[in-house]
């Protein structure tokens, strides 16, 4: 018998690392030294905070470079890093390091932010919990997708791949195991970083409903 899909959810505990940056050089040093959970936190926190609209700067580094240092071009470069292309946080960290090092090579002076606007490195620890939602087939899966919290949806879509280091998001893995290979591929090919969380949920529900119609 095929395994049902158990929906989990997760809660985050935010940690303060006590490291601050006042300029690009210090930001670079911080990015080099903080744990990978910190890089993950600063590049993913916004996805849950802004469930219904997309913020202009989709990660904390780019937001700070823009608002506190006023370096719009650099902020845009950092914002444009295509996170979906990275299956390992360390590769993502290396990409940020490369962009900041390139910028520093061509910069003659360092601009400091005003006191109290320093970048403060945070990190996060996650606690994974079961939810009452279980899907034994595609119909139940589609229904559950409508009802689970945004935190649960987020956990299976984002955290599974980059933080838990699974080969794919949890939904695609389960769909593939159930024999819905084409649907699994479609879900894998979505770029979740270019949707809002609720927009992504709607898209996934639509794909599942189309598949149910086709099967019938």
């Amino acid at each position, binding site marked *: 018998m095929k395994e049902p899909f158990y929906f989990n*959810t997760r*809660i985050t*505990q*935010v*940690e*303060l*690392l*006590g*490291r601050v940056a006042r300029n690009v050089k210090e930001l670079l040093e911080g990015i080099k030294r903080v*744990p990978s*959970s910190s890089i993950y936190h600063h590049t993913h926190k916004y996805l849950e905070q802004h469930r219904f609209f997309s913020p202009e700067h989709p990660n904390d580094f780019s937001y700070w470079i823009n608002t506190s240092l006023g370096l719009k071009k650099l902020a845009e470069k950092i914002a444009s890093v295509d996170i979906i292309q990275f299956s390992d946080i360390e590769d993502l960290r290396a990409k940020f390091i490369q962009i900041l090092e390139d910028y520093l090579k061509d910069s003659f002076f360092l601009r400091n932010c005003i006191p*109290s606007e320093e970048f*403060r490195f*945070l990190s996060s*620890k*996650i*606690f*994974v*919990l*079961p*939810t009452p939602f279980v899907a034994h087939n595609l119909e139940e899966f589609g229904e559950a997708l409508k009802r689970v*919290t945004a935190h649960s949806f987020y956990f299976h879509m984002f955290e599974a791949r980059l*933080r*838990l280091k699974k080969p794919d998001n949890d939904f695609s893995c389960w769909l593939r195991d159930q024999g819905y290979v084409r649907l699994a591929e479609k879900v894998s090919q979505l770029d979740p970083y270019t949707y809002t969380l609720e927009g992504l949920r709607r898209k996934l529900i639509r794909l599942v409903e189309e598949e149910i119609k086709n099967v019938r």
Partner: protein
Amino acid sequence: MLDKYKEIVGEEVIEELYLIAKKLKDITIQNINSTSFGGGVAEILSRVVPLMRELGLNVFWDVIKADNRFFKITKKIHNALHGVDLKISKEELDYFHQINLENANNILRKSDIVFVHDPQPIYLVEKKKKLKNKWIWRCHIDFSSPKRDIWKFLKKIIERYDLSVFSAPSFAQSLKVRQVLIPPSIDPLSDKNKPLDPAYIEEVLRRFGIDKNRPIITQISRFDYLKDPLGVIKAYRLVKRYLDCQLVLAGGGAADDPEGAKVLEEVKNEVASDKDIFVLHLPAGSNLEINALQRASTIILQKSLREGFGLTVAEALWKEKPVIASSVGGIPLQIAHKYSGILTYTIEGTAYWIKQLLHEPDYARRLAINGRRHIQNNFLITRHIQDYLLLFLSLYNPQDIVYL
């Protein structure tokens, strides 16, 4: 009691709390602070502890015993941590140490986790080695620019704990122990925050002689220099030249704050002849009156010079009031400027925005609506309890990803 929160935060949030609490059912936790009433810490503990018990946790709350001399010293430590330039002598620090040790011999229960709140009981940790249990130090105050000497003194003690907790990212320090971020919260069902009958609100206004038909500007806080009550009066006077309004300065005193009476005296002298300024020194337990005063207000101020978190801001926003507050401590986490309230830096700026909001009630209303939504999502007691449960669990689960 927890069931009543379902209507406000949703059933799944409460179910999650029960699920996490199950993992802690064999753990005993002792909270220790320096006062059982007055101030934000006692208020939060008085709500959080019973709810945690309802979740099935073995939680206790004890208060250290100390004299006025000790609290004068801890007030100096508190002010120095807030960046005030003052000297604390070796004798004072020795006495601070001595009272902590006396309490350590009497107060500590057999527990798995000792949860110490703020600097007053910080030295109790000297017993950690003997008791072989876990210790957490929870800092409720603004730690962003402590004076060097006092920070050096406290840092060594904090680093004996297993874990430290701060209310805002800007309070983080370079420490050898883990630092967890947990903002405080308000309880939407407490006497201070629950919905009130309009007739009761009017009765409170009548009792204090406040005119309900003219704008009411209010600051609720302890009488403390760091809350800048004299600055509030100056801002009000700048507004009063152009607009007929009233000012309410209301608050109680905390048992661990011997400076309060002096500040209250100065405030009373300052307003002696102005019949539209109401200085209300309320006795402990006046939560319904405070709630009524906030609900009756047109604008609420929190013009603190320093602030731990400034929970009065969350209280005011929860009541859907436009708030003008200083950009200090945890206040910027509660107010996004011009979206969910107004952040100011000066007396003149505060006066300017009071006039603006009195002239533009529709804009003030929009700020208030956004403010309430923000508090609902981020600063209610259920989120706070969840954070504490995870905090306790994290002492036994050092890994980044914990499966419960």
